[in-house]
């Protein structure tokens, strides 16, 4: 197990390096002179020279990259061009909001997604199964921002039962609507995967044995089938994670939650490149690291993975 963990961690290093290079490369996508493009042609030569020096634009590419990487490794993501505040500080301040949204959404998605998946699989090819699958297909085609807008209109504008914008006093009620919408969005993917994993498990011999022993169907489903399916379902979390990050960007923007997703969009909109790069790098690193953790979790649950 230890050697698997070590191998997986070592494998992540080149990917993380590549992520940093792509992030740094964003600076080179800016057409023309990035500084002039971003601070405006009319900025004083002094300002431009200062930003140039701060970004190290007067150095050769590899030196710039290494200098930037060295700072990043020390937790310095530079200063926002918009607010002048350190990007790392803003990220840290906004992280709790995104984390709370993600946790709420994740709880909803596991409950709904895994539940629907098991429900549908244990009733394969019945009317209930077809209804669930059709619903997943239909809802899966609706973009999350349309779903979120619809929820906002229904609960915030028409029924006026839930707050639809901002963080208010930061209490849980402000996360109910965004968390549920994001959770339902994630659960579509999870329900589909859970269903197909469950279908495979249900066909195994040990399930037939459990039934032959005369165990009640509920026990067969949950204690024998679901627990074995769960091992594979853990890897779903890796797949959900990309949806979670993307979904939180859109959800935070719509519900005006001051999290990292909203920060990313605001920075991108203002073309505040240090902030964009910081958000970009942070989320990509979270994504890569989380995928490694999921792999390790998977290996811990299933010896075949780490030995195979």
């Amino acid at each position: 197990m230890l050697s698997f963990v070590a191998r997986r961690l070592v494998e992540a290093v080149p990917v993380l390096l590549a992520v940093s290079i792509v992030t740094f490369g964003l600076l080179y996508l800016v057409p023309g002179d990035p500084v002039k493009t971003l601070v405006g042609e009319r900025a004083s030569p002094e300002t431009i020279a200062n930003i140039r020096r701060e970004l190290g634009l007067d150095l050769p590419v590899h030196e710039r990259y290494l200098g930037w990487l060295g700072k990043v490794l020390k937790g310095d993501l530079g200063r926002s061009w918009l607010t002048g505040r350190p990007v790392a500080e803003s990220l840290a301040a906004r992280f709790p909001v995104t984390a709370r949204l993600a946790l709420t959404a994740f709880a909803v998605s596991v409950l709904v997604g895994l539940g629907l998946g098991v429900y549908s699989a244990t009733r394969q090819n019945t009317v209930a199964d077809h209804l669930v699958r059709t619903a997943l297909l239909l809802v899966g085609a609706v973009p999350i921002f349309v779903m979120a807008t619809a929820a906002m209109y229904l609960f915030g504008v028409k029924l006026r039962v839930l707050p639809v914008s901002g963080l208010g006093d930061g209490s849980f009620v402000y996360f109910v609507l965004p968390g549920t919408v994001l959770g339902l969005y994630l659960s579509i993917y999870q329900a589909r995967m859970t269903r197909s994993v469950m279908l495979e498990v249900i066909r195994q011999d040990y399930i037939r044995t459990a039934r032959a022993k005369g165990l009640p169907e509920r026990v067969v489903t949950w204690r024998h089938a679901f627990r074995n399916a769960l091992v594979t379902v853990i890897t779903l979390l890796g797949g959900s994670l990309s949806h979670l990050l993307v979904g939180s960007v859109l959800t935070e923007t719509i519900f005006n939650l001051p999290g990292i997703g909203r920060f990313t969009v605001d920075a991108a909109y203002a073309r505040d490149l240090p902030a964009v790069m910081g958000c970009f790098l942070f989320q990509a690193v979270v994504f890569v690291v989380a995928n490694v953790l999921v792999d390790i979790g998977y290996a811990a649950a299933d010896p075949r993975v780490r030995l195979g």
Partner: protein
Amino acid sequence: MGRGGSLAGLNIMALAGAGLILGVVALAIAAPSLAPTHPDRLSLEESLEPPGPGHPFGTDYYGRDVASRVLFGTRVSLAIGLSAQLIALVIGVVLGALAGYFGGWVDTVISRAIDIFLAFPDLLLAIGIASALGPGLPSILLALSLVGWPGLCRLVRGEVMAIRERDFIQAARAIGAGHAWMLARHVLPNVAAPVLIASSLGMGSRILQEASLSFLGLGVQPPLASWGSMVHYGLRWLSRAPWLVIFPGLAIAVAVLGFHLLGDGLRDMLDPRLRD
């Protein structure tokens, strides 16, 4: 659905999907003759009118006819989705075939590139590119193609690797077929089915991604309007004029559903291994 539904040997999901897509494409082509008014015609005295006889989908703040704008938005959304998917397809198939066919260092380099691009959540990569390059058509196309190719490339690579070991390839090699001939004549035709399935599902993803990017204000810029950018501008009138969001949102869902149905249906038809 699934394995059950078929009509004259054709999968019902695939048929329904193809029907929806054909319908949407027909609307895009016929937009000029179907639209009640010109999509950009301002009419300030008709600001924010609810759906009714004159304006089936209502009007926006400037009194522009929402139905006409959704119809013309179909062209923008489909054209961007299709172009991005085609670019991703060409990159993915060419690199995937090279990696799978030649193996060795070619495969190593291309596989690492795939890993790197898959290390980013799709929308995040698109946002990064759009903000660095500046919003607009070139950055949308670049962003969506970069997001789309790795999945296709990995698929083609795997399929080509499997085909490479088959007897008919060995036979062709034995009679002296060159690499280019082998790839074009024997290998690629055999990956057509999975690529077709992935492309249909991919079109759905590209349309969703364009819509998301434009919804965030980082995609299609005025005066051009796609379904996503219409939702972006409609959101500020949500409490007074929800139809500004409902109709373009519905259009996205219908188009995406069409491509998903076609992709899933084709998979059931063409790839019996993947049936559940």
